[in-house]
């Protein structure tokens, strides 16, 4: 089964502070870890919300709001798609990721697949 593992922006990331050598090393360690476990199907990281926008629809009225947005902690910083046997296993990988890169919060969500509809 597949899980989407998401982590969230920090204020520093939002402010466009480039990752320190330690942070880069931590990401490198995580990539090595992911390669060794054979569970990572894909993953992406995103830039500060200053480079993005938001589309809001209220009663059919569309409003496009340019970034940046307040509340860094509510903004996704990146995600990975893991293929594992159980929620518990996905959680263990999320734990490793969080400890290695120093993320404050990682959400683990089940990905809906074709076989779920069988």
């Amino acid at each position, binding site marked *: 089964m597949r899980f989407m593992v998401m982590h969230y922006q920090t204020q520093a990331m939002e402010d466009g502070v480039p990752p320190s050598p330690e942070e880069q090393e931590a990401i490198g360690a995580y990539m090595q870890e992911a390669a060794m476990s*054979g*569970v*990572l199907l894909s993953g992406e990281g995103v830039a500060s919300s200053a480079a993005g926008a938001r589309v809001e629809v209220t009663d059919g009225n569309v409003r496009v709001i340019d970034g940046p947005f307040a509340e860094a902690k509510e903004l996704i910083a990146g995600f990975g798609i893991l*293929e594992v046997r159980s929620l*518990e296993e996905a959680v263990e990988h999320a734990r490793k990721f969080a400890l290695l890169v120093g993320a404050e919060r990682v959400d683990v969500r089940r990905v809906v697949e074709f076989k779920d509809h069988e």
Partner: protein
Amino acid sequence: MADLDGHTATETGNLDAMVTAVWRVESPRIIARVVRLVGDIDTAEEVAQDTFVSAIEKWRRDGIPNNPAAWLHTTARFLAVDRIRRRDTQRHKYEQVAATTPQTTEVDLDHIVDGDLADDLLGLIFMSCHPILSPDARSALTLKLICGLNTADIARAFLTAEPTIAQRIGRAKRTLAAASIRFELPGATERPARLDAVREVIYLVFNEGYTATSGDRWIHNELCDEALRLGRMLAGLTPDDPETLGLLALIEIQASRLVARVGPDGEPVLLMDQDRSRWDQTLIRRGIMLIGRIEQLHGTAGPYALQAAIAACHARAIRAEDTDWPRIAALYDGLAQIMPSPIVELNRAVATGRAFGPRAGLDVVRPLLELPALREYHLLPAVVGDLSCSVGDHDEARRQFLRAAALTRNNQERSTMLERAARCATHS
């Protein structure tokens, strides 16, 4: 449970599920680390088990530590060192009794430098896929050590009795011990052959899952998932090896069709008849990306890379009629040269027929009718029947379809063949 003393807050009832998951993630790494220290798999496995037994006791009492992996690795290392010390003391005693010159065999245990975990893991994979073992033994041992499955899981997946698998694993370990095969990373000259032995295991495990049937139906089998995981691990550990990437691309793309190849009533659906919107695009993208990487590495001519390229031709076709048959035929020509086999030849005949017309296909397939190896293989007359039908030779087509119907063990296929034979009869 409250978050006390740096422990994860979690429900106690979840401990078993959590430990199972941690075993799966960490046990291969622990065994790989320990086997480098103690040398043999049996001891390494025992140390890993002892480590988890103490973990369960401690975690049940004190809660789960924030970093269970770190706790397990520290404990495993402690237990491993303890065992080596005891073993050395024992040996020292024997040596004194035997009055031989005492040898200093002791490792300086306080100064063990942990090597690269990736190397340890790769070394363990090479060990459990050692060519001295039969492919069956390699598969069972690999699923146990590298995938963290227990004997019962493996037996269920292989549709085999548990004692059979237990014996197979036991015998494999004894064979490795008898041949004094220790932890090692093969050198540059030996490496290609050793990687072949690993890939053979991964493909065997995949196919075991892919072809598992109950009656006329495919059954979902976790072996495909395990093979994918192993393939992804190996590709992660040897990212520049084109054939490993080729194998992974091949099984990713084959696995993308696992859902689509089963009809609403559980019946098998052939590739050309599948609902392609049900193909798993995540896996297809991964396969095609891997093929791109193989091209960068100039490794497109290997047997797995070629088979992956063929699978990708099907994956790229949005509708069955969009299939690039000339390209598939050319890839089969290449495959037939480096990996000649009657089955490759039969597939080449199908592709050639689709690409260049049924007569060209018949030219490839006819010599196969003489081969004893394919005499009982139902797909040969099915292919000859199909090509003969296309050139208008309905008598020959009918004979071949009837023969295919007589040879197949699958009821569904038998009725399809009989139906096609009957349709030929109306033409003659």
